[in-house]
């Protein structure tokens, strides 16, 4: 008994000693968090001896405001979407990140030039380019859907549709499904007629929609046969299809590209370690490694050439990336400014539309 007591006390002591060297990273869960644990967290701990606590949220941007305003910040690094990074930064909820801490590319190109445009913000450093696509289960769909219009055509392709329960991406897809080319979507959404048109298009399939909120849900809904097609984060579908052998196909037409960025909430308990983590995780090699665990594109140009095979050792990653040339024919880049501004208004209308 006494021995155990001594042992546990010693262990607690060790745990305390170790807790000085840790960093808490909040991400989106599922296959995506796993890819980050493999590509960033494990090598980071191996190199610096700083342990990484991984926590998940449906959207890591949402707990930040509550934590910062309550003065009880437990997260050191959060992985958030573009518009959220800009909004939180504007509201003074994030620490600014000095871009000079980011290592240059292996050929010496400075980080500020190596990152793709928009990937470096005052308070945020992007790690991946991901996209919202729609995918279908080949067992429950006859024929081959090719375009965004097919997603909204329940006569040609009968079956339920899964959609993310938010105005963002849903409205853009509705317009593209109504035949609006990607390049004109945001101009149209700025107008009341455009918003009306998007909702009118959604009305046509409203009774067939199953709404999802967490990124892990669409592969589940597709696998259960609960929906025939669903919008989803492209990496989740890739991992279910290639990693788990599910009969899912991605339709790239009308995909909506976005960044995921690392941010540090103001008052993070381990700011030094957080900065170290971000600099490490977004270097050329780490971003390339991450892409071998899930099909999200690295945010550095220099990482592109290093992206090779999926972790199964045989699948070439390049064609599965949202940024692959053949996937970009009708792609939309998420307009963060539009959503920073209109998020509240359009979600309000979206909620009203849902409730009717």
């Amino acid at each position, binding site marked *: 008994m006494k021995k155990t007591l001594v042992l546990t006390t010693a262990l607690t002591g060790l745990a305390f000693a170790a807790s000085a060297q840790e960093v808490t990273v909040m991400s989106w869960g599922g296959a995506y968090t796993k890819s980050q644990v493999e590509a960033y967290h494990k090598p980071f701990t191996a190199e610096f001896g700083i342990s990484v606590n991984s926590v998940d949220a449906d959207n890591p941007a*949402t707990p930040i405001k509550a934590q910062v305003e309550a003065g009880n910040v437990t997260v050191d690094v959060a992985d958030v979407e573009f518009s959220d990074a800009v909004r939180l930064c504007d509201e003074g909820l994030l620490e600014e990140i000095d871009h000079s801490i980011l290592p240059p590319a292996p050929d010496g190109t400075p980080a500020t030039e190596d990152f793709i445009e928009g990937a470096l913000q005052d308070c945020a450093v992007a790690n991946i380019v991901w996209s919202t696509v729609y995918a279908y289960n080949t067992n429950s769909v006859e024929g081959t859907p090719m375009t965004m219009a097919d997603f909204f055509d329940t006569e040609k392709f009968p079956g339920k549709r899964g959609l993310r329960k938010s105005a963002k991406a849903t409205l853009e897809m509705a317009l593209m499904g109504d035949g609006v080319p990607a390049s004109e979507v945001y101009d149209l959404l700025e107008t009341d007629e455009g918003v009306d048109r998007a909702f009118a298009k959604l009305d046509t399939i409203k009774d067939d929609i199953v709404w999802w909120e967490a990124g892990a849900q669409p592969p589940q809904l597709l696998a259960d046969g609960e929906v025939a097609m669903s919008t989803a984060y492209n990496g989740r579908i890739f991992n279910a299809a290639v990693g788990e052998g599910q009969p899912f196909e991605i339709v790239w037409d009308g995909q909506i590209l976005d960044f995921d960025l690392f941010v540090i909430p103001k008052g993070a308990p381990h700011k030094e370690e957080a900065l170290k983590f971000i600099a490490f995780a977004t270097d050329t090699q780490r971003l390339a490694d991450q892409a071998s665990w899930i099909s999200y594109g690295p945010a550095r140009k220099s990482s592109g050439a290093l992206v090779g095979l999926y972790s199964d050792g045989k699948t070439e990653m390049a064609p599965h990336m949202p940024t692959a040339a053949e996937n970009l024919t009708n792609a939309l880049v998420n307009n963060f400014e539009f959503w920073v501004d209109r998020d*509240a*208004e359009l979600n309000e209308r979206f909620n009203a539309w849902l409730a009717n």
Partner: protein
Amino acid sequence: MADISAPLTTADGKPLKAALASAQARARRRAFFLVLPLLAFVLLTFVAPIAQMLHRSVHNPGFTTHTDIGSGEKTPIMVNLRAWFKENPPGTEPDEAAYEALVKDLVVLRELKAPGSVGTRINYERAGSRSMFTKAARRAEKLEPPYKEAMLDLDEDWADPELWQVMRGASSAYTFNFYLAALDLARDADGSIVSVDENRQVYVKLFTRTLLLSLLITFLCFLLAYPIAHLLATLPLRHSNLLMIFVLLPFWTSLLVRTTSWIVLLQSQGVVNDTLVATGILDDDSRIQMIYNQTGTIIAMTHILLPFMVLPLYSVMRPINPSYVRAARSLGATSWTAFRRIYFPQTVPGIGAGALLVFILAVGYYITPALVGGANGQLISNLIAFHMTKSLNWSLAAALAAILLGGILVLYWLYDRLVGIDNLKLG
């Protein structure tokens, strides 16, 4: 012979009344110290948060005070513009002085890095304002008089009377505008209260739906629980204990597990539909949609809240003496009359307690409708959660919650008037 008009005293000469009072005061103090931990706990974890919520629903200093997150230092902002609003009555056309005040304030905002939060405050009531503030603040320092023209060059929307009305409303930290928004109302350009566009109206509808669904669920729980409780109360103890475990087992199971089990059972490729198809009752194409809609919310919530009805009913039914009903029967009452006149009235306190418990829990229910409610099975609590965690408009969330709280108190008061709160038996 003692003087009877002199006050009674104790042995040491103190007046009896005072001695008694001090002895009782000591007892009272002791009792008070005994309940003090509980009192402090209730104040801290219940009363204070509700008070803070109510305060937040009428107080939003987003346009009047900037709080530095690092140091907690508070700086008054929009000082010049707020002064202009004070000097000029509502409806005044904003003149050059107003724009000059605005530009001066924007320069200060830029230094404080606060244009985003001020813009967000205005954006709550007028969409699209946020980027106007951040953009204008970025250039404010370089603007030259005449300021009105300079601002309109940046963005024509700065002349929008609605924007000025919203800024005027926000220029006082205390406002009832969040309550207006929570009731689908808004102020128009000259400050009078109007309904918002039809395609934005959502809250009143959801309050009504929450109320109706909660009543329906309470009623369904009553219908299901009454026979169960009766059975439990009348069976011999050794059988009823076994049955009681069936009632309590789901009660002890995690809420999430129960909700997701309903998803497995009810989804269109789920157990219920598969069984119906396998037995030939349904075609494969005509599977019933029982989840991700109102039906799903009603089924799952009724099941989850059922124990809250069964337990109070059981506790009032158990002690009812069966000889009352037997006596009524022997005096010639039909079984229905005996039930209606003798048995049922004795169970009313249990029905009241169960109904109140189920109804109040149902009104605030959140996770189950979020998971199985789809689009039309959402309740008001889901929108409160939306404003708490997604849109981060906490004042609106607080106003919605306050209205919900007020509504419940009114219903409770009505219940007290109609049924009587003394007539309530929880166990």
